[in-house]
Structures are given as C-alpha cells and as structure tokens.
C-alpha cells in the first residue's frame, strides 16, 4: 500500500520517464554481458532489412543496427551527464556569486551571460566545435559553453529573492561571514529550479550532441553514436531501418528526461502543478 501511495504521489509522467531512463542506464551498464554481437564487427551482409537474426537489420557495412543502437547509449548518456553537471554547477555558482555580490562582478558576469545567450545555441556550438576540431570531447566543451548561462540566470534570480529573506538578515546580524551566509543560508533554498532545468537539459543535450555528430562535428565513425548513425542512415536513404534504431533511441531518451523533469517540477513546486 505504501508503495502504491508513493507511485501515486510521483504521478504517471514521472513513472514513465523514470522507467525509460532506468532502462537506458541498465543497458549502458550491462550490455557487454548479453549483447549477441560486437558493435564494431561485421556480422552479416550489408543493408539487410530487419530479420529474426538482426532485429533492426544491418547497416552499410553489415553491422547489427540494434546492437549499435544499444551501445550508443554509452556515448550519449555519460556525455549528457558530464555536460549538464559541469554547466549547471559552474553556471549556478557564477549566478550565485553575481546575485550575492552585485555591483561590478554582477554586471561582468551577466554581460557574459547576455552575449552567450544572444547566439542561437547550435550556431555557437558549431563554431566552438569547428574551432577546437571535430570530436565528441570538443563537442562536449562546446555544449558546456552554450548551456551554462541559463543556469547562471536562474540561480541569480533565486539568490536575489532569497537574499532579502529575514533569516539571512538574522544570520548576518549573528556575525556570519559572506561565504557562510551564501553557502549555508541562501544556496540550500535555491536548488530546485536548477535541478528541474538540469533534468530537462539532459534530454536536450543528448539531442544537441546527436545533432553535432550528425553534422560531422561530434563522434566520428566508426563510433556507434546515435547522431553519427543517423548520418549513415541518411546516406542509405532507401534502407529506412538504418536510421530507425538510433532515431527511436534519441526520441525515447529525450521524452524520458522531459517527463522526469515535468514530474520533478510538480513534486518540488506543488503550486505549478495546478
């Protein structure tokens, strides 16, 4: 009964999202144990349609599409995690400093935020990746560059409102230093919008990483990365199954994180649920 009550409190979207994400995490961790084929080796004739041996067919070289799709999560998920972790922590920290200190520090940081946000994300990400050279690592750097400002803005707004609370005044009156007031009395109250945004961002970063790989700036062949695989599918346009697996994989991960983020928002901020 308790478990049922908990599930009801979480809501359907969060359960669906949780299941999807959990599925991919389990796949990422255990695929080596049960995968019937190696993602890099040629296991059949090229461009064969789905069959009972190769459920999603084979690609242009004769590799198993399903196995490569499942292995793809090992690139997409860790990259999204690292990018979101770095940009949310870094961005939030800069935003908190800007909001708490105000003055010159604030205007310098916020100008930087404004300039970065005035680029459409994909253009800036493409320019950064092109400058650093193609590759998944450089694409990750580019994605951090485009995604931190949102967190800075969110956190700054939070800190600005929390700063005026009475308990902060009390802490200052009690002789707490600046660092202590910020880290102990303000920041703990500011995390929930950052957390919600980070969850939704995980899906968006998976999408952006795949886009960069699709263009040819991210993962390079023969890496089984979803965007890269769809690019191969675009070459073999008439063999629809080549791009089917990675496309569905991206869709499911993005949907999963969107559901999870939506549910998390309702949970953390009951007012917005209404």
């Amino acid at each position, binding site marked *: 009964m308790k478990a049922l009550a908990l599930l009801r409190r979480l809501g359907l979207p969060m359960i669906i999202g949780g299941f999807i994400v959990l599925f991919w995490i389990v796949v990422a961790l255990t695929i080596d144990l049960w995968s019937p084929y190696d993602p890099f080796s040629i296991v059949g004739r090229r461009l064969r349609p789905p069959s009972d041996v190769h459920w999603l067919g084979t690609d242009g070289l004769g590799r198993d599409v399903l196995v490569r799709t499942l292995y793809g999560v090992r690139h997409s998920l860790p990259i999204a995690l690292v990018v979101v972790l770095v940009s949310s922590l870094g961005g939030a920290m800069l935003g908190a400093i800007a909001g708490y200190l105000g003055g010159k520090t604030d205007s310098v940081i916020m100008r930087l935020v404004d300039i970065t946000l005035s*680029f459409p994300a994909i253009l800036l990400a493409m320019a950064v990746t092109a400058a650093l*050279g193609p590759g998944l690592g450089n694409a990750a750097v580019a994605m951090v560059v485009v995604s931190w400002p949102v967190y800075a803005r969110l956190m700054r707004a939070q800190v600005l409102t929390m700063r005026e609370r009475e308990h902060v005044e009390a802490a200052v009156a009690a002789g707490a230093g600046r660092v202590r007031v910020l880290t102990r009395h303000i920041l703990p109250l500011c995390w929930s919008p950052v957390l919600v945004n980070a969850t939704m961002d995980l899906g968006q970063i998976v999408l952006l990483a795949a886009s960069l790989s699709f263009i040819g700036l991210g993962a390079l062949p023969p890496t089984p990365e979803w965007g890269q695989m769809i690019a191969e599918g675009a070459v073999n346009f008439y063999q629809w199954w080549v*791009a089917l697996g990675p*496309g569905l994989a991206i*869709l499911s991960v993005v949907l999963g994180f969107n559901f999870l983020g939506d549910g998390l928002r309702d949970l953390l901020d009951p007012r917005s649920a209404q």
Partner: protein
Amino acid sequence: MPLLLLGIVTIAFALSNLTKGDPLISIIGERQMDNPEIVAAAKARWGLDRPLPERYLRYVGNLIQGDMGISLRTKQPVARDLMDRLPATLELVIAAMVVGVGGGILLGVVAARYRNRAADHGARFVALLGSSLPVFWSGLLLLFVFSVVLGWLPGPGRLDARLTPPPGVTGFYTVDALLAGDFTTFRLALTHLILPACVLGWAVMGIISRLVRSSMLDVLAQDYILAARAKGASGPRVLVNHALRNAMIPTLTIIGFSFAYLITGAVLTETIFSWPGIGSYTVDAARSLDYPAIMGVTIVGGSAFLLTNLVTDLAYALVDPRVKLG
C-alpha cells in the same frame, strides 16, 4: 544592444583564431604546406601575417562596410553567399512559423478547452513529441514515407532539378512563381515546401502550445469570461474573442523566442532536405572548417536573434498597453 553586437563579433573572431587546424591547409592544400614561399605568399594574400589586434580591427572595420571576407570554400564573398541563400531560408522559416504558430495555438486552445480530458492529453503529447524528435531524423522518416512510399510529395530540394527557378523578385519561389503567373511552378514550389516546413514547424509547436494552454487556463478562470458566458455568448465566441485574444499576450514573447529554435532546426532541416539556404551553408562551412563563413554565419545569426528579441519586446508593448519600455 551595440555592446552585445560587439560581443558577438568579438567571440566569433576569437573562436576562429582559437582553432588548432590551420586555415592555410584548406587554402593551399596539404602538399604545399612544406613550401615556405607559397605559405608566406598565401599568408600575405589573406592577411594572416599581421598581428592579431590589427586583424581584429580590420575585420570589424570591414564588417561595418558589409564585408565579411572571402569564403575559403566557395571563394566568394561571404556576405554575397549569405545574401544569395537568405531567401531560401526565410521562405522555409516563415512557412514553418505559420505551421508552428498555427498548430501550436490550435493544440493549446484544444488542450485548455478540454483540460485533463483525452483531447488535452492527446494535444500535449503531439506537442511534446514535436519538441523531442530530432528533426534530422523525423525529416528523413517523413521524406521516406511521403515521398518514397506514398509518393504524395516530391523529394528534397526547392524545385525539381530540371526546372528553372521563377524570375527572382523576392527570392521566394512560391511568391515569385505567382508573380510570374506560373501556376505549375507555384504548385511544385509549394509541395516542395510542405514537408520541411511541417518538420521544422512541428519542432516549435511544443513550446508554443504549452504556453498557449497555460495562459488560456489563466484567462478562462477570469471573471469576465464568466460574465461573457452569462450574457449568452456562444462557446466558440468566448473561447476565441474573449479568451484567446488575451491569452495571446504572453504567447507573443515565446513566438519571438521560438525563432532561436527555428534557426537551430533550420540548420538540420535544410541539411536533410538539401535546401539551399543558410542552414545547409553553415553545415558545409563547419564541415570544411571554412572560418570566414562560420564567423559570418555566427555573427548574422546572433544579430538576427537580437533583432527578433527587440521586435518582440516592441510588439509586446504594442499589444499590452500596460507594458512600459524602460
């Protein structure tokens, strides 16, 4: 605003000079890199022998005069390349905007009207699907289904390759064909436009419909809606004349904001549909590390984005007299 523009230019310039790959390789080819004479000549020719601050100032100076340098790939002025390709992108983006805003408002109103019922969940799912689908995959899939399997719509491109484009007045093939009175070309241009516009429009439908739904719900809870109903106004009338008009105010901002998504989507959609616009130009430039072109596109994209935000703010003040521009 001017500060932001300068920031955009500076970042674009800094990025293109950060590169590890030597742009000289793509100018003179890898084999010639061992020949010091040719390298020096090429450096002097492209101004790469000057110190960085001087190159920066020269770039900004040229930019003010509308000169973005020469593309390493097409060997043409970047500004002209962009102007040539702008109409194709604009035509696509405007058509996608019509699909996205129209569909978004429709889905949002339906969802708000039938709140928490099947139609609401359905509309929200369609919208969510749009914003979760990678356009470079949905485009591929829809192209396959509608053009290859069903044969209802033509393949990629703006027109069939053997047709000559209509005389260029606006650069929009649909409008130009109509102006020339050529209905066959008009029909072809339109059918070529439908699929990419739907793919791109669907991607922005999500954020628009979400906002329309929530602001419709806010408005529908107001007393004047009740008053209008009490006075006997019909359901659709209340919904459209009383509720939607007021709900549109916050939606305006998101329409401006969705422009960023449209640009992102256009880059990938154009690639899939072989659409000869700025998006596919950008991808080609990035793939061949064509720095002048990448810089040009980044600067133009950033400025266009700034401009839309400004226009959105102005439109906001126009629609809602309570908003004062500070």
